[in-house]
């Protein structure tokens, strides 16, 4: 059994026990999806029928909820989510160029994840610290007044964290 196979098996067991904890609870779908995503980083599509059976829903209903909320993902995501701000303040301070540079540095487009699963690139409409524009966020950490040099430093070594 490959390393991947083992971890997929572990994930399945974990999902099954999370589902078992939630079944019987009312309105338990969204908290359950969040719990699964918290632990695994995403909601594996093949867990949809398991979740549906556990909660007495149709798989199509579970998929409908997952696809409605942008916070829920059915694809694995990087260990760090990079969010480049595209708000007005950041835009006038060169946010567009920052985004272009981050793409170049990570070698991925918006919504994609680097091959080593280190980073997922997203954009955000505004993070509320316009005074620091242009901004980007890595995980929970906000980087203000970013410039090409800072971007390069942040993601040097092909995106590996220095």
């Amino acid at each position, binding site marked *: 059994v490959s390393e991947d196979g083992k971890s997929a098996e572990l994930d399945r067991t974990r999902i099954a026990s999370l589902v078992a904890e939630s079944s019987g609870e009312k309105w338990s779908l969204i908290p359950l999806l969040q719990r699964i995503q918290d632990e695994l980083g995403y909601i594996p*599509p093949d867990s*949809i*029928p398991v979740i549906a*059976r556990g909660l*007495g*829903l*149709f*798989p*199509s*209903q579970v*998929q*409908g909820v997952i*696809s*409605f909320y942008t916070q829920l993902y059915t694809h694995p995501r990087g260990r760090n989510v990079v969010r480049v701000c595209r708000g007005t303040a950041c835009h006038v301070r060169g946010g567009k160029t920052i985004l272009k540079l981050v793409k170049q540095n990570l070698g991925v487009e918006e919504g994609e994840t680097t091959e080593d699963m280190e980073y997922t690139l997203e954009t955000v409409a505004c993070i509320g610290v316009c005074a620091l524009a242009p901004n980007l966020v890595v995980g929970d950490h906000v980087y203000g007044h970013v410039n090409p040099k800072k971007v390069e430093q942040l993601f040097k070594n092909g995106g590996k964290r220095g």
Partner: protein
Amino acid sequence: LQPVTITLNGREVSGLAGTTILELATESGVDIPTLCHDVNLAPVGACRVCLVEEERSGGLLASCVTPIASGMVINTHSERVVEHRKTIVKLMLASHPDSCVVCDKGNRCQLRQLASDMGIGLLGFERLLPVSVSEELNPFLERDLSKCILCAKCIRACQELVVEGAIDYYQRGFAARPATVGDVPLEYSECTFCGTCVALCPTGALMEKETAYRGTSHTSVETTCPWCGCGCSLDVEAKDGRIVRVRPGGNGSENKGALCVRGSYGYDFVHSPDRLTTPLVREEGALREASWDEALEVVAGGLARLKSEHGGDSLAVLGSPKCTNEENYLLQRFSRTVLGTNNIDNGSRLYNAASREGLGASLGFSGTTNRLSHLEHAGAILVVGADPDVCAPVVSYAIKRAVKQKGARLIVIDPRRTKLSSFADVWLRPRVGTDVVLMNALCKVVIDQGLFDDEFVSRRTDNFDALAEELRECDLAFVESATGVGYEGILQAARLYSAVSQAAIVYGTGVTQYPNGPAAVRALANLVLLTGNVGRSGGGVYALQMDANGQGACDVGALPDFLPGYRSVSDAEGRERLEGLWESPLPREAGLTAVELLGGPSAGRVKGLYVVGDNVMLGFPNGRRVAELLASLDLLVVQDIFLTETARMATVVLPGASFAEKDGTYTSFDGSVRKLQVAVPAPGASLPDGEIVMRLAEKMGTPMRYSSPAAVMDEIVEVCSLPGYRAYVDGSYAQADSGSKRQDELGNGWGVGRIYGGLFPEGFARFCPSAYVPVGDSPGDYPFTLVTGPTLFRFGTGARGSRSSRLERFCPAGFVEMCLRDAESLEVKASQRVRIASPVGVVECGVRVTETLPQGTVFVPCSFPDIPVNQLFDVAVDGEGMNASCRSCSVRIERIECRE
């Protein structure tokens, strides 16, 4: 509930609290346009077209989801409301393609109707590009989501009515659309192509993919589905004498706007080029075309000669569970008076005999004790030996609705995994043919644990002591070894079933088609009586039928031992009454059953056989012996709509009419009588089957004259005294209304609890202990247990299914299903061919590997003429008479080596 009064368009109206504005407006004759609303679906307020104005608050409310409140002042068509409504429709049109001119939905499109009614011309909005069109491979339905207005009718139909849940909303905003899991084409989803969503879709987003005939339909006729015994109401739309489409019929009918794939798309056989259009007569070994006069002359002459030479009992008639009540009634009268024999039976013998014996003995009436609609009120449902998703889809919908929406508990007893078993609280998986043991064990547990209804048992039943005595012998260790089901499961099932005051048992051919079927039915009737589940809404026993009119054919007397209305042929009083009515003596001795006729030791007694609407060559056990017997007859008359395997053997073939070409009635499995009406003319010279029988009687010099099928029905009501028929004639025959609401309003024993609302026919119901007789050990040479049955897409003997173009193409070939371990032990892979042999026959077919079967059990469908699985079965004679086992047998399977 207090009435609430509101002002509606300046007029005071009142309705019960909880009524929506839309419902009250509709009741008051005010028309509010809607797109997403349907009486059979829960309202969601998705389209906003039904918005109305509340004058005091100035609010605009979606009337379909807003309940009335005291003092509301509602305007449905004020200038402001109409302006808003127009904007909403315009916005829908702005994201809708410009293809109305070529869209097949045409004037049936509700969006287009609405735009036209409101006088919407130029939109004045920038248009959105429509999203891409999805490709479908199936021949039934097509999705063009660029025309979707997101009303969610399809989603609700799938989740609420059919309870399949194949689709739901997917994604959000402009990308939102109904989609399957993984957004795959429907063929790869749970979709069963029932067509319910297509019938509800207000636009051209969901449409029939192919129609046998295109064009704007000129007529729409409400009639009854000819496939299974559910009796679903259909609207048949036709043009130029051709069916254009079929939609679920009649508001308020039992199918609630839902159908299955057979009902929606299975009518193609009506216009098959294989239809018989003229009588055929055998001449020098070959069948040639003949006139009606000539063909009937040959038949009448032949029957008369055999009768005078060998007596009436040398002749026999087989009526048809696919023909109407009126036709079967005429046939049994023809057999008894014109031919002078009780040798009249019908093909439902193969699955109804067990119910007749079993329920007849214990309840005094052989049939479903309650209405289909009441099944949804059951608190617990036990499904045994039936896969309603296949053999009675609308029953399955009702069961799933009861489970999903009303919290009913479900117990499934079936060796095969069915769709319902995934909805079940308890799924017991007994060995094939051991239902008697399991049902007895359930009864024993119910008695031992004190779970039975003491009052009902003591006041309404007798013979309890005999049952208790018999069950004392029942050893639960033996039960486990015989059935493979452990005590825990049995206890759990018994508790779930007896814990509620309204519990139903649904059983089907998986119980009745075994030699021990009557015993199994008696055992489950005991369980029903122990828990007092007769004469209650939601409780009862539901006996599923295989054919559209299996119940009716028996009710009206197409039986060798019963006159119409189940009066025994030996009952002098019943006989005299009919002798007076028909002005002819009636034979007193019970005739031969269809099984005896076609396979028993007395088979040779019959020299002339008249088969109507039944392909006995593929339907009856031991097909080869049936063929030999038919070949040995002096006269074989076959009346059918196709030149079936049976018809090819005939001396004379008479072309009958299909369901869409005649008037009459079917009786559904729950005893409701349903109307058939002419939708299209019969092809060529073919005639309605009843008309043929009357002409034949005339030709034989003993006319039976009725002015119409309705006149026959009037006589049936007089003669049969069964509640369903009386209710039908009183309520609806004259008014071209096959809806069943009316029947509810009538007394006639059709109210809550239906038949046994009063008392049992004998005053008491009788417990009938039923010992288990093993089906017979499988000999070592035949290690596999073969089970047969219909499939969703192919049904019956396959005569109609193989000629229904869309069903045939979607499910073209038969197969044998087995589990992976069996396939591995036989060293076969999927689609490799195998030879299946029983002691009496051999068939060959391709393999399908499935997870639904236990090891050692294989499934071969019965509805493919290229795999005549009936050739593997034999007729078994047991203590209770001749019973055909046509459900299961022991077989040997071997791989067919491919020639390289």
